């Protein structure tokens, strides 16, 4: 097809003189991982909290949690990103908005991307946690209350330990998704893995090598996450339950 392959291009010094093109990619790789892991941490904490609230008897609390989920789950990720990055700094109190706009552009991009991915994913985590809690036998809650636990203790000692075990597999999917979703953040200029891939194409004119390298980097991340989550699954398996021995 007349394409001249040149993998060595990755090791050549970059046009801007700051290391190699592979070095650019590595910068994006670190950004993707840093962003995704911090957003995942935020999503897990918020999502667990909101997921629990969706199942409590208090109608006001569960309604509020449901509204939270629908808000962050139903607005497209890209739109949410633009709202965090372009719109909210304008709507925020002047002092706060100005402080944001005068900060380092990388900080602006990273904070917007983190909030966007974190809230978006937390709504999805909340749904998984809720379904985990709802799939427990109803008698478990009764048994916990009957022995004298308060509702909070029933969640803490009886329902959540089992619910979280049940949702490890679906949470693995969400965990994988957050790395892939983070590519959207290139649209506000954040130099993560996908953005570096495009840069590489522009500077080297070797699109196949560039995108293959980036794709492999994503695959590497996913493989590591999958193995790690499988370890977690095995660690928390309950003997005599759900295929445990």
């Amino acid at each position, binding site marked *: 097809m007349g394409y001249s392959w040149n993998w060595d291009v990755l090791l050549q010094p970059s046009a801007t003189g700051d290391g190699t093109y592979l070095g650019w990619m590595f910068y994006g790789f670190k950004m993707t991982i840093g962003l995704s892991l911090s957003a995942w941490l935020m999503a897990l904490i918020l999502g667990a909290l909101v997921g629990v609230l969706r199942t409590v008897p208090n109608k006001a609390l569960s309604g509020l949690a449901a509204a939270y989920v629908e808000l962050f789950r139903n607005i497209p990720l890209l739109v949410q990103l633009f709202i965090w990055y372009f719109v909210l700094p304008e709507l925020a109190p002047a002092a706060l908005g100005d402080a944001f706009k005068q900060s380092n552009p990388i900080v602006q991009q990273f904070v917007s991307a983190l909030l966007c991915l974190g809230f978006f994913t937390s709504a999805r985590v909340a749904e998984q946690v809720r379904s985990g809690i709802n799939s427990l036998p109803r008698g478990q809650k009764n048994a916990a209350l*009957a022995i004298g636990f308060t509702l909070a203790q029933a969640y803490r000692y009886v329902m959540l330990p089992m619910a979280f075990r049940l949702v490890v597999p679906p949470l693995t999917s969400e965990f994988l998704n957050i790395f892939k979703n983070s590519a959207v953040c290139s649209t506000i200029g954040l130099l993560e893995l996908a953005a570096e891939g495009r840069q590489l194409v522009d500077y080297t004119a070797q699109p196949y090598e560039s995108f293959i390298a980036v794709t492999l980097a994503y695959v590497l991340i996913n493989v590591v996450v999958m193995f790690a989550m499988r370890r977690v699954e095995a660690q928390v398996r309950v003997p005599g339950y759900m295929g445990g021995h």
Partner: protein
Amino acid sequence: MITMNKVSKHYGAFQVLTDCTTHVAKGEVVVVCGPSGSGKSTLIKCVNGLEPFQSGEVTVNGISVGDPRTDLPKLRAHVGMVFQNFELFPHMTIVDNLTVAQVKVLGRDPAEAQDKGMALLDRVGLKVQALKYPGQLSGGQQQRVAIARALAMDPICMLFDEPTSALDPEMINEVLDVMSELAQEGMTMMCVTHEMGFAKRVASRVIFMDQGRIVEDDSKDAFFANPRSDRAQQFLAKILQH
């Protein structure tokens, strides 16, 4: 010990309990029976407030269950309950099932709770299973553990909600034996069950329910010898056939 006075409960338009009144004295064993859907389980769950009710009053040891000022967790901690499906906590070892509430609810020292748990496991013949998980035990064993778990809280009375209904026939007796032993020791018990043999041997009184009402509330001998209502006669005829 347990008093129910005109307890009524409905889900929307559906009346589950109507004017249920009864009394369980200290040391009494009361068996609650009746066809399925008659409200037996709901009635027994009103005693520890697992099922709210709209009117009437339930008191346990003089404390009103329906009163919003009542500290329900505190009351429940001293009312043991055993469920049809055992409801052990699957992620905890057997001995942890027996100690967690002692420590977290009663504030007992963990070592003391452990000793008490092991002694109770020994009593129900399951000491060697202490470090296993509920999923590794048979149904009969799990139900004996569930009874031991309730006893670990030093209950003033025990509620049983069809404790043998989910068991294979050959495991029913091991559970009934533990319950009979408890009754002989003078434990106050309210027990929803279809095991009429157990009722005949152990019960002091039998309550028969139908369509959310207490139709009969009589001494064991009077109930079995001469049930007054047609409904109870039919029920006994059916259930005693085999």
